[in-house]
């Protein structure tokens, strides 16, 4: 599996994930959330930022089911899904991820027939090759 290669702006996201927290960068002056992370605020140009804790709830905005040709680790999980989750706390922030049956379950553990745009999901975390990454579990609703 590919593990994240964070840059300086993105590193806190992955550090918080390792603590089991989903946090998004915000402006420490005007309070606007921004994603992906960047050095300064596009609204007020402040360089002061804070990482705001999210509830971890969201909805599937869209998804794909990638098929070969793929990189070997992904090709070994045929029918896996890649989703975009719109965060309940910030609907215009969408995180890429995977919907799974359990945090450490394979990327193809959910029947694709259960996926639909708008389905509610909740974040969970799992460790892949020493790096903690978010996963998404379907919620009733």
């Amino acid at each position, binding site marked *: *599996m*590919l*593990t*994240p*290669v*964070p*840059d300086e*702006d*993105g590193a806190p996201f*992955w550090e918080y994930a390792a603590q089991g927290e989903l946090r998004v960068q915000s402006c420490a002056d005007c309070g606007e959330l921004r*994603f*992906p992370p960047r050095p300064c605020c*596009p609204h007020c140009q402040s360089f002061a930022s804070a990482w705001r804790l999210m509830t971890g709830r969201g909805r599937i*905005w*869209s*998804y*794909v*089911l*990638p*098929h070969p040709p*793929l*990189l070997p680790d*992904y090709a070994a*999980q045929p029918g*896996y899904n*890649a989703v*975009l989750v719109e965060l309940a706390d910030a609907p*215009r*922030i*969408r*995180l*890429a*991820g*995977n919907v799974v049956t359990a945090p450490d379950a394979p*990327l193809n553990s959910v029947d*694709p027939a259960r996926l639909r*745009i708008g389905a509610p999901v909740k974040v969970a975390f799992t460790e*892949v090759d020493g*790096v903690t*990454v978010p996963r998404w579990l379907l919620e009733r609703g």
Partner: protein
Amino acid sequence: MLKDATAIVGIGQTAFARQLPETEKALACRAILAALDDAGIAPSEVDAFASYTMEETDEVEVAKAIGAGDVTFFSRVGYGGGGSCATVGHLAAAVATGQASVGVAWRSRKRGSGPRPWKNTAVQLPTPGQWTRPFGLLRPADEIGMLARRYMHEYGATRDHLFNVALACRNRANQNPAAIMYERPLTREMYMTSRWISEPLCLFDNCLETDGALACVIVSAERARDCRRKPVYVHAAAQGLPAQHHGMVNYWNDDPLSGPAWTAARHLWKHADFGPQDVDVAQIYDAFTPLVPLSLEGYGFCGRGEGAAFTEGGALEIGGRLPLNTGGGGLSEAYVHGFNLITEGVKQLRGTSTAQVPDAATCLVTAGEGVPTSAVLLRA
């Protein structure tokens, strides 16, 4: 002013194939020399170059190989297929402002036989690769598939709409002996039963992987009148990097379904003497079929969400509302980062296309949608 101040007076291309024996550099030189010959201009007169990134052959190598003179303008545009029309725009601006007199734009690729950028696991572009690649969102087809499914969900677009795009391109390729798919008709059954690449996108929603090169020559309108071929004027040119855009993975702005096409289009039409309703033929960047309805909306041929319905009733075929990608496009002629769309636009306005639109006098050519993009309006 840029408007009609310059013209494309020469075009050239190599053969297109899954695998060509020559190097990317040699193919580039062949296409450029063919374009100069078409224009009747000596290589020693070339003093400007424009190309795009993600290719290994640079202007230094090309200039010395073809025997160019002293070069006083050279530029390279980023973002893969988003840069195609910008090469023409940059040269038109350079020639119109007196920075150079004979400009050459080109694209040479070994995409059919060479490496695919997404397979490189050693390099994840730090942003936004860290937000997508670990989750198996690996290839451009996955990234565009995500937008496609959302688009289908929001606007009732169906796979039949995407098929309309694939079919129009294939039908034109079937008229074009240079096209890779010249002898390979496409049916709805083939489309509907083909394998998935990234569901909802199937094999036929994806462009070809091609080796090949193309080039064009740009001079002032005044000089163009003395050239061998009928001039095709650069009427307007624009690039588009929208506010809060994020590159190809355009998921994090307010409205991911309104891409850079909208930005480029606003500028383009503002500087043109005509509007979308006056376009006789269009060459719309088609690395993936969903880019066509999205671009039709962005460039104002229809309203938001109406791009899929626009493709119905043979609208994209010859004789339809907007004949499109008349050489076969990236889907069925060759995928050379969209440069064949530029040269096909020139052929239409010269009246020499293999799928000629009668009396075509205006053509819109667009570059990759999703990535920072560009477009040109050409007129006879």
